[in-house]
């Protein structure tokens, strides 16, 4: 493919403009020089036997037996000259020396297998010059490379640099101009002006680098040949934000991406959704591939996350070190992922990590950053009424329904007499300033034949909740070596140790946050800090202001006496061997493993209220191992069939095996208090879990290119999936794509530098989870000899594979030399035969059943706009805008059930999949209203009647209408300033926090008519009479909020606009460092999640989620979202 890029346009032009050959040669050199790496090792041996043939025929014969192409003007070939060639396994130079021995022509072998033939007009009076070419890298450091093309303008005379970047050349005279070019860098014309020793520096051409895209199976392709939408982010765009979780840095930068966070401290999971939700009860997250290795990104949290919340044990991608990332390609659609198979039905994130660059010698990079974190949003709390109920101070109350705080003396829960005064910061002060310290060092070395990259990164972070810490060490070794001319080896070893200490629970189970938000407004944090009393028998008694409650306890007790430590050891390894059989045929074998263990330990001290074995404490150990083992072979054929046609075929086969084993040991209470050992168990239970799946696949992809402007893609893949019934476990899915680069096909106005249309259609099949086809009966401790638990799920032994069909159409437009670029994509996706687990009427004997059903449609638009309004040498201004809009509709669900719940029904909100509506609808409990919309109250109490049937009130849908982001980057000399604004429009969220705070009187919502009480506005009694009964504020709010809230009243619009990111960075100019030990240095001030321009949610971040499952749109006492700001220093040696 690379070669075609060079030869096709040139040879095509030669046919029409033969006489312009010499002028065009500069183009050849320029383009040809982009091909350096491809051809370095493609030199081949030639065997020929020609007797007395014309020179021209000899050249044609050489072309036929080799991969070399000659460039010459017929006019210069000496008429009548003939030659004899008889060689066996000879090098090309030897063959050419024979041909050119006796004629007045010279040849020059370019790095792209082009051989330029020119008259022997050797420069008798020529000028010998020499020089060195430096390349300025992204980080402003300078490096050198072999193969930089140097050409004398207007001639065919030229050369390339050696490994040290040096070159020598004989030019006509001192007035000559040199054209210097190198792949990925802006070409440059250098006038000699009489000089004979030159020092040239090429600037990086960022635009050009982005034009190559890593696609499925690690196949690198020109962006213009792709038939579907992709988006590439550079590693620095991700790592410069200093986010601990790589995916957090993607937020707002990718069109059509929706991220929600679990907010459970450092290392928490993100839910990543491209182009809307496709699967109703399965996963909707994309496949993650790192250097061709699919890594396990299974969220380690329970799937059905209720308001109670879950322990978010992190996801897979958050282990990847952002500093190691060279680039990230986002394939948002199904067609992009047709080759990856089922797991990529939701798109794919393809990460390429850094490796040593050929010809750059030794490089060392050291980075260090410190980021501080503080709560960005906080619930709106009142500071007028203190602890108590019914307007009376009650020392043991959990509510703030007490009297006005006026400094009156009261005997409070500590037994002391203290003034009843507002404690406005008692909630806020519980949180500490979080810290993220990241220190990294990397070394890369390279020779012609091998490149090595090694990095070490240490990440240390303190969450904003006391005693919540995060540590991660990443070791990454990458070694690429050319074993011989045809065989290359790529080795990678990645070792990650992650230790998360006391990761907070999400949802109501986060007792610390639930208590700290809702506690009485008059409590002093200093009193609460004294959280325990030691008893003579060694046990502890928690100091709490009320009687034990299963939902609340002293927040410091939660932080220091309910401990949870989870350690992950992860090894990711890759061995890849590639054999270049001929220049156009190669075979690659790859073996990769992603193995990790998670060990967790939970210690709950005695007197923890919510532990079932109350008063006894508990100890739980959980050990899990996960292994993703993949092997594949890939055959690549890439050849120009004729001058115009090029064919690129990839065919391969793979086996993917996943294995999970888990053991859980639960003491269920401790005999001796606070001795955390399995031997001290009160009623131990241990359970083990197994999951194992395997997928075998064969696949092929062909791309036919015509004149490098029209491309046809065809792919096909067949999977055999162990999770499906034997009769249905094989499924085939094809894809087709077409793209045309119109500006190369037609004559368009000069302003249009790129106009490409593309379209593709793809099918992707999918299996299901492990062991879904038959019932699972399990034994559990209980009774006198154990209990047998039957399966509450009705299984279908004849499940069919899921099927997603996706059509996408796109347009790429570049104007004014690509200073303005637009990429627009429309897509329409149907997912059918979905494998769903839906709730069923219980009298059937089952709680759920697994079915093939559904037709979910997602259609939408993705838009990317890039502009460079100012692009001068000293000042550059870049704007990047992205926009994503998705419209979802469930066209068909099931013959029996039109609205199965996706979550356990809860009065606050139930998430449903409803036929005829968009996925992710939220139904809540509501106030009973009459036909006029008036609130109906109970005539006896004056309190609103509550409709607790959650199927009656539709509150909205949790998905945004659209998302967008704008990134502005200003670069002035060595200074760079950039900021990013995100917007999310639409979607609703139901806030459990707000209802909790309203019920216990700590929310500002509860202030109106506190002391007088009120008649429920616009209300009537059951009989229709006007309601005149006064209710107290406490009775009202406790009736509509609290443990069983009226979700309708706590539903908020999730629309928000925020300053996601701002950074200012200074790079020490390269010229100051030239030739010194230090090659580059930069300092960046970075801020993330700085503030909201607009936030319709009431005192919380609408991106908050209870878990990463499909159960979104509910919020409950999550850890506040944080604002981050810090400093990042990077040094290159």
């Amino acid at each position, binding site marked *: 493919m690379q070669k075609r890029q060079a030869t096709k346009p040139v040879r095509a032009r030669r046919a029409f403009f033969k006489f312009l050959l010499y002028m065009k040669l500069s183009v050849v050199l320029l383009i040809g020089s982009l091909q350096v790496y491809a051809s370095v090792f493609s030199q081949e041996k030639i065997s020929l036997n020609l007797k007395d043939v014309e020179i021209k025929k000899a050249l044609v014969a050489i072309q036929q037996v080799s991969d070399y192409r000659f460039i010459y003007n017929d006019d210069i070939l000496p008429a009548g000259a003939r030659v004899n060639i008889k060689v066996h396994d000879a090098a090309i130079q030897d063959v050419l020396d024979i041909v050119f021995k006796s004629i007045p022509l010279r040849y020059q072998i370019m790095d792209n297998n082009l051989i330029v033939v020119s008259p022997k007009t050797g420069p008798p009076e020529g000028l010998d010059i020499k020089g060195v070419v430096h390349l300025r890298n992204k980080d402003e450091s300078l490096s050198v490379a072999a193969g930089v093309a140097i050409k004398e303008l207007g001639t065919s005379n030229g050369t390339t640099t050696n490994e040290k970047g040096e070159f020598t050349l004989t030019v006509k005279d001192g007035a000559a101009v040199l054209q210097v070019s190198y792949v990925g860098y802006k070409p440059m014309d250098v006038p000699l002006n009489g000089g004979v020793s030159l020092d040239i520096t090429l600037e990086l051409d960022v635009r050009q680098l982005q034009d190559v895209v890593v696609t499925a199976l690690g196949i690198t392709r020109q962006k213009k040949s792709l038939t579907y939408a992709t988006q590439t982010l550079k590693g620095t765009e991700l790592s410069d934000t200093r986010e601990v979780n790589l995916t957090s840095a993607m937020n707002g930068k990718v069109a059509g991406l929706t991220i929600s966070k679990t907010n459970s401290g450092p290392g928490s999971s993100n839910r990543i959704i491209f182009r809307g939700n496709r699967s109703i009860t399965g996963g909707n997250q994309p496949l993650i591939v790192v250097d061709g290795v699919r890594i396990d990104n299974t969220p380690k949290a329970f799937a059905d996350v209720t308001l109670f919340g879950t322990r978010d044990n992190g996801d897979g991608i958050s282990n990847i070190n952002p500093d190691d990332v060279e680039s990230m390609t986002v394939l948002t659609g199904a067609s992009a992922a047709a080759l990856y198979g089922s797991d990529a039905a939701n798109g794919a994130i393809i990460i390429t990590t850094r490796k040593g660059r050929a010809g750059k010698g030794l490089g060392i990079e050291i980075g260090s950053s410190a980021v501080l974190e503080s709560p960005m949003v906080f619930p709106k709390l009142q500071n007028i009424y203190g602890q108590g109920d019914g307007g009376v101070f009650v020392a043991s109350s959990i509510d703030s329904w007490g009297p006005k705080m006026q400094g009156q003396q009261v005997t409070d829960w500590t037994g002391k007499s203290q003034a009843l005064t507002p404690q406005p910061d008692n909630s806020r002060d519980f949180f500490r300033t979080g810290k993220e310290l990241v220190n990294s060092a990397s070394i890369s070395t390279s020779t012609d034949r091998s490149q090595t990259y090694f990095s070490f990164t240490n990440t240390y972070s303190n969450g904003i909740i006391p005693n919540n810490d995060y540590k991660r060490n990443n070791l990454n070794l990458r070694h690429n070596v050319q074993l011989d001319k045809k065989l290359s080896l790529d080795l990678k070893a990645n070792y990650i140790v992650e230790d998360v200490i006391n990761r907070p629970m999400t949802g109501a189970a986060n007792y610390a946050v639930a208590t700290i938000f809702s506690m009485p407004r008059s409590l002093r944090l200093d009193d609460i800090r004294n959280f325990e009393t030691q008893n003579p028998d060694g046990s502890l008694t928690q100091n709490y202001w009320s009687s034990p409650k299963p939902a609340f306890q002293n927040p410091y007790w939660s932080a220091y006496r309910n401990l949870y430590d989870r350690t992950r050891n992860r090894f990711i390894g890759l061995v890849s061997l590639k054999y270049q059989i001929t220049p156009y045929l190669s075979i690659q*074998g790859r073996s990769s493993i992603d193995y990790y263990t998670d060990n967790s330990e939970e210690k709950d001290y005695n007197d923890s209220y919510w532990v079932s074995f109350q008063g006894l404490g508990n100890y739980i150990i959980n050990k899990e191992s996960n292994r993703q083992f993949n092997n*594949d072979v890939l055959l690549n054929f890439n050849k120009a069939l004729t001058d115009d046609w090029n064919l690129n075929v990839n065919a391969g086969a793979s086996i993917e095996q996943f294995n999970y084993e888990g053991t859980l040991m639960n003491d269920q209470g401790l005999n001796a208090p606070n001795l955390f050992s399995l031997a001290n168990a009160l009623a131990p239970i241990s359970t083990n*879990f197994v999951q194992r799946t395997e997928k075998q696949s064969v696949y092929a992809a062909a791309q036919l290119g015509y004149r490098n402007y029209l491309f046809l893609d065809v792919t096909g893949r067949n999977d055999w999936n162990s999770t499906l019934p034997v009769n249905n476990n094989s499924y085939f899915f094809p894809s087709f794509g077409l793209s045309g680069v119109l500006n190369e096909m037609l004559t368009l106005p000069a302003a249009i530098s790129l106009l490409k249309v593309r379209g593709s259609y793809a099918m992707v099949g999918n299996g299901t989870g*492990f062991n879904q086809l038959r019932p*699972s009966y399990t034994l559990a401790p209980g*009774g006198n000899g154990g209990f047998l638990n*039957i399966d509450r799920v009705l299984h279908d032994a004849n499940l069919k594979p899921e099927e997603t069909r996706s059509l996408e159409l796109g347009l790429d437009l570049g104007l004014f030399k690509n200073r303005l670029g637009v990429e627009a994509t429309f897509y329409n996706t149907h997912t059918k035969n979905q494998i769903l687990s839906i709730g069923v009427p219980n*009298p059937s004997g089952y709680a759920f059943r697994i079915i093939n059903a559904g037709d979910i449609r997602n259609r939408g638009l993705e838009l990317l706009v890039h502009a460079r309004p100012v692009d001068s040498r000293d000042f550059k201004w870049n704007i990047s805008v992205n926009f994503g809009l998705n419209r979802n509709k469930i066209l068909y669900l099931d013959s029996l059930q039109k609205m199965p719940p996706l979550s*356990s029904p809860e009065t606050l909100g139930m998430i449903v999949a409803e036929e005829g509506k968009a996925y992710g609808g939220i139904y809540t409990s509501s106030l009973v209203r009459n036909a006029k919309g008036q609130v109906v109250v109970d005539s006896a109490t004056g309190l609103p009647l509550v409709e607790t049937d959650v199927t009656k009130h539709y509150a909205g849908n949790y998905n945004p209408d659209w998302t967008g982001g704008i990134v502005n980057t200003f670069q002035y000399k060595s200074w760079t300033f950039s900021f990013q604004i995100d917007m999310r429009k639409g979607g609703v969220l139901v806030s459990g926090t707000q209802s909790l705070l309203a019920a216990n009187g700590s929310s500002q919502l509860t202030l109106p008519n506190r002391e007088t009480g009120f008649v429920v506005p616009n209300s009537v009694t059951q009989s229709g009479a006007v309601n005149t009964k006064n209710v*107290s504020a406490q009775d009202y709010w406790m009736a509509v909020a609290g443990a069983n809230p009226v979700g309708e009243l706590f539903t908020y619009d999730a629309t928000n606009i925020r300053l996601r990111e701002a950074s200012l960075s200074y790079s020490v100019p390269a010229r100051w460092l030239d030739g010194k030990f230090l090659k580059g240095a930069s300092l960046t001030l970075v801020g993330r999640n700085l503030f909201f321009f607009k936030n319709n949610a009431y005192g919380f971040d609408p991106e908050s989620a209870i878990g990463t499952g499909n159960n979104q749109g509910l919020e409950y006492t999550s850890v506040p979202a944080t604002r981050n700001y810090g400093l990042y220093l990077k040094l290159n040696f």
Partner: protein
Amino acid sequence: MRSIIYIACMLIMITSCTKKFDELNTDPTTFGSLTAATIPNAFAKAEYQGIYGDPGIYELARALFPDLWSQFFANVDPNIKSDRYVIIQDWIISQWSSVYTVTWPTLKQVLEATATTQPEANAIAKIWKAYIWHYHTDFYGPVPYFQAGTGALSIPYDNQQDIYDDLFKTLDSAVTVLKGANASLTPYGTNDLIFHGSIPLWIKLANTLHLRLAMRISKVDPDRAKTEAEKAVAAGVMTGNADNAFMDVGPNSVNGLNQMSPWEGARMSASMESYLKGYSDPRMTEYYSPAADGQYHGVRNGLTPAQLSASDKNSPDNTSNVGPRYSLDSQTTNKLTVMYAA
């Protein structure tokens, strides 16, 4: 070096076998159907679940509704709205789902598995079937009964008359089998958490339950009630404490009421206080504990949050919690009550 690639290819060829997929996709830690050896474990589960022994279910299905509405307890936690006759759907559903998705399908499979091979075990399971359904239908009235647990997704409700009629018949057939059985047999052994397989005791429980069912229809069908009651008594009902039916508890199947005793705010109701004090009932000290002042104090059912907070007398400390036998410490020893002779 070519050989490495060949080996890689070979590796893929060799392992390219989908024949083992079925085995691979089977969880070795579970089994796919009820095995003969685990029938007693299934029966034990049906027993424990059948009286809502599990603390979570006990709380939602009993403590927060029937226990309050029958006024054994009142609740002093202002957030417990069910004491004010508010139906909380996501709590009350536990009664329904527990019977239909756990207790009944488990017991039904035991009934099917023992139908032909173990008549005595089958008969005991039938008695338990009558026990769980009489509670369930008395809770809701007409419920899906005859076709429940068949896997059909649309199941009709059955009227209570038909359900009661079937329960009588079920008890009759069970007692007939057990009376003809060798009384030394102990079906399910100790996995029968109630009588450890004692056939004579199960017969008495069946007849006593028969009598209870008869009494419950005495207002709607006096004639049938009379017939059934006389039949039950003639067949031999529980007569003394030795006949009482209690269910074993243990470390992993505790007494739910014990476990929840420190939770929420369930306290003696004013109604219970009136009865027990009014009749100087000696059970007071067994059922309830003294409040902080050493006296027994109840609280009225159905108080609003403001009413609850209006007086310190309604606080958890100043009202009577459950008695000492229901303390947390006794959760693994205080047996669950199935039926008393009294």
